[in-house]
């Protein structure tokens, strides 16, 4: 999957699952501070990612991501692995 595709999927999921205004979901938006995602949401997001891509992001990896772009990069790295 290309990075743009991953970004679009994440943006769509954030909007549909957490009702976040799409205008706020930029690559640089910080998940916890700007988008009000908490640790419970993060687990939901990982479950959805698993269902969608079959790839499993390690919780340790997820703890290090800060922005939407970080998630895109982490998922992209999974595809490269």
């Amino acid at each position: 999957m290309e990075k743009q595709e991953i970004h679009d999927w994440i943006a769509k999921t954030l909007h549909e699952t957490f009702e976040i205004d799409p205008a706020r979901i930029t690559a640089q938006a910080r998940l916890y501070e700007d988008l009000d995602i908490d640790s419970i949401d993060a687990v939901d997001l990982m479950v959805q990612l698993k269902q969608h891509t079959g790839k499993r992001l390690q919780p340790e990896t997820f703890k290090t991501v800060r922005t939407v772009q970080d998630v895109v990069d982490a998922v992209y790295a999974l595809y490269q692995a």
Partner: protein
Amino acid sequence: MLNVGRLWRVMATGFCFVMFGVGGLGIAGAAVPLLILIPGRHRRQYLTRELVHHSFRLHVALMRLTGAIGCVIHGREKLARGGLLILANHPSLIDVVMLMSLVHRPDCIVKAALWRNPFTWGPVSLTGFISNASGPELVEAGLASVRSGNNLIIFPEGTRTVPSHRSTFQRGAANIACRGDLAITPVIITCTETFLTKGQPWYKVPPRKPIFELTVLDDLPPSSQITGSDEPARHSRRLTEYLENYFYGEVEQHG
């Protein structure tokens, strides 16, 4: 002018603080005998929770007896049940002490720092209280606790309220409520004076004796009846918003 009543309350409050520490160390001291004598983690947790409940009853009695505070409780009988999810606003340091003095088998989501404090380590580890640092597992643990018959106390604001400041709620409490479709028992805590609020040292006692008022309201209906059921992520957001408005309105009315 020297306010004798105030001077007395500084001493009474200091004394109560010391006694709280002594009690905490006492419970920690009971850890070793408990571990040896009482087999089974659940039985030990049950016993320590009852021990904490009765110690806090004693502590509230001590605070009232010495005149450090006054305390009025409305609707106490609504707390004489088990398996409750109790949500309260959080104006002062002693809210949890007062609430746990009113319920049997108390459980609580407490801040992780209390495991590193020698005076609170004993009670929080032996009771198996839930750490706020546990992240998403907190939801599962909270739900399991309520279902096992404990009375789970949560301050959805996550920290003490800054006076006259409308705070936002964390979503953990709503997540527990909506994933278990639980009814919520709301408690509104108010105080006639500013006392033991966030950032205020204990010896800053107010000129008049602070009277705490705890009002236990009727249970809210199961969360699916409040917000309609939905995916947990959206459901818990709606419920959190509802609860913020509900508590804000009730605190205004009682304050």
